[in-house]
């Protein structure tokens, strides 16, 4: 008993020390890059959304991976083929839902909205009063919070207070009523970033802050900047944060590292889309719609490819198609892919040659390597086809 009390006291002391440190250190250094005008119309635009979703990609094993949540249990069922097919489709829809991107909006400014001023009420109490409307069935955004100052002014509460009151009376799961230490202490967030826990930080950020808050902008910008330096873009691929990340880079004209990563990993269509997005944001007079349309016709959408990936687990009927698919699986590319690659390589080279690219040499090298690899694969592909006696379609 005594021991427990002592430990508790020690913990209390530690908490105090932390609090002191919190006060002493600045709450995370501000990021250098900021959205100078409202990015929301451009972000929510249907075309941009399509580009970002395509860039995010849909890897089901990534989306439905084991998480650190209380319930990770899976269910095993017997199903007919039709039921399985339906289940696949619903799974892909669910995955798309889970990959919904958090919006990128500008920082909401606090405005004073005074309802009434009553100088006769000055000093009616020694503290101010905060009134929250707890009417049943209102959304958090439309809940009214008003403050009566000690000088008798009645005004709508600031965003900060409103959020605090909402969290107090209608708590959101996982959101703290105080700033989590992870976001308050500079060394902790720096440690998270150096350990490449980008997704964790972003998820926590999304729970803790609304997208229109300055803290959200600061920390997400820091994460993206750090990511741009460490070049671990694959950690965010097929998560809901990839879209905003790509948008961030495109907005701030630093897509080259991400582009290099995409080329190196042979996601040429995504590279084209990224370039197109940056053109779109900065109003560069280059016609990209045509190339995109061509590529779209050649490539399946992420949902389709995810479905085929699921179906590939099932047994296929033997025959001509079986051999063709074996060749595809051996090389990893189809004929369509080769043509698509050609088109996209052309577009990318055009971009590298233009004045928008900053790391030209690196990109050129990557493109060259990819071209060589592709050439080899193409030769192998044709050879295999000839050997199996398949007509070139």
């Amino acid at each position, binding site marked *: 008993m005594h021991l427990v009390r002592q430990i508790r006291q020690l913990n209390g002391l530690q908490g105090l020390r932390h609090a002191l440190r919190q006060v002493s250190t600045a709450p995370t250094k501000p990021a250098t890059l900021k959205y100078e005008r409202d990015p929301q119309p451009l972000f929510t635009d249907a075309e941009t959304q399509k580009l970002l979703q395509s860039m995010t990609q849909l890897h089901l094993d990534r989306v439905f991976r084991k998480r650190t949540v209380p319930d990770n249990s899976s269910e095993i069922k017997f199903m007919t083929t039709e039921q399985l097919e339906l289940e696949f489709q619903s799974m892909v829809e669910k995955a798309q839902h889970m990959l919904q991107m958090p919006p990128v909006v500008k920082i909401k400014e606090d405005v004073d909205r005074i309802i009434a001023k009553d100088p006769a*009420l000055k*000093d*009616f*109490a020694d503290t101010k*009063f905060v*009134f929250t409307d*707890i009417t049943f069935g209102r959304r958090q955004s439309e809940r009214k919070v*008003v403050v009566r100052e000690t000088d008798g002014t009645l005004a709508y509460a600031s965003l900060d207070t409103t959020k605090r009151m909402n969290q107090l009376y209608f708590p959101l799961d996982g959101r703290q009523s105080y700033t989590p230490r992870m976001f308050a202490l500079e060394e902790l967030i720096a440690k998270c970033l150096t350990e490449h826990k980008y997704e964790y930080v972003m998820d926590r950020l999304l729970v803790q802050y609304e997208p229109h808050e300055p803290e959200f902008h600061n920390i997400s910008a820091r994460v993206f900047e750090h990511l741009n330096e460490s070049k671990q873009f694959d950690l965010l691929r097929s998560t809901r944060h990839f879209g905003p990340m790509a948008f961030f880079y495109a907005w701030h004209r630093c897509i080259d590292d991400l582009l290099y990563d995409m080329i190196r990993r042979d996601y040429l269509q995504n590279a084209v889309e990224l370039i197109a997005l940056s053109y779109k944001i900065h109003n560069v007079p280059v016609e990209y719609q045509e190339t995109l349309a061509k590529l779209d016709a050649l490539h399946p959408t992420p949902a389709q490819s995810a479905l085929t990936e699921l179906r590939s687990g099932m047994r296929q009927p033997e025959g001509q198609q079986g051999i063709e698919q074996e060749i595809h699986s051996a090389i990893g590319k189809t004929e369509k892919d080769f043509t698509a690659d050609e088109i996209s390589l052309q577009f990318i080279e055009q971009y590298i040659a233009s004045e928008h690219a900053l790391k030209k040499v690196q990109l050129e090298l990557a493109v060259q390597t990819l071209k060589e690899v592709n050439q080899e694969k193409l030769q192998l592909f044709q050879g295999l086809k000839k050997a199996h006696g398949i007509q070139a379609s």
Partner: protein
Amino acid sequence: MSLSPASGIGRFYAKSAKIIRFVRLGCTNRPFYHIVVMERRKNQHQPVIEQVGSYDPLPNDHNERLVALNTERIRFWLGKGAHLSTPAAELLGIAGLLPIHPRTYMTAWRNRRTAAESEAKAETTA
């Protein structure tokens, strides 16, 4: 004393006098109030008809006193002819839901006067 649910379990007659008032909860030296609707003749710790808010008279870390009001139900009950206890009327007046109660003005000017007097006294002694 166990809490009754906010939807209320209090029995009431249709035509009895209702009142919106405080119920003192919390404990010794730590007041906390529920703002409730109940029959006027009943003791404050009887079951209530409905809880329509809460009031924490002790200021928090940010030096603010927190009040929660279910305005929809308060409007309903006032429209039904519920009475108001003076502290509740004062609080609703401060919230801007009703006109400000004269007693609030009175405390305000008395506070101002005592402050001015003490200041004057401090000046004369200094």
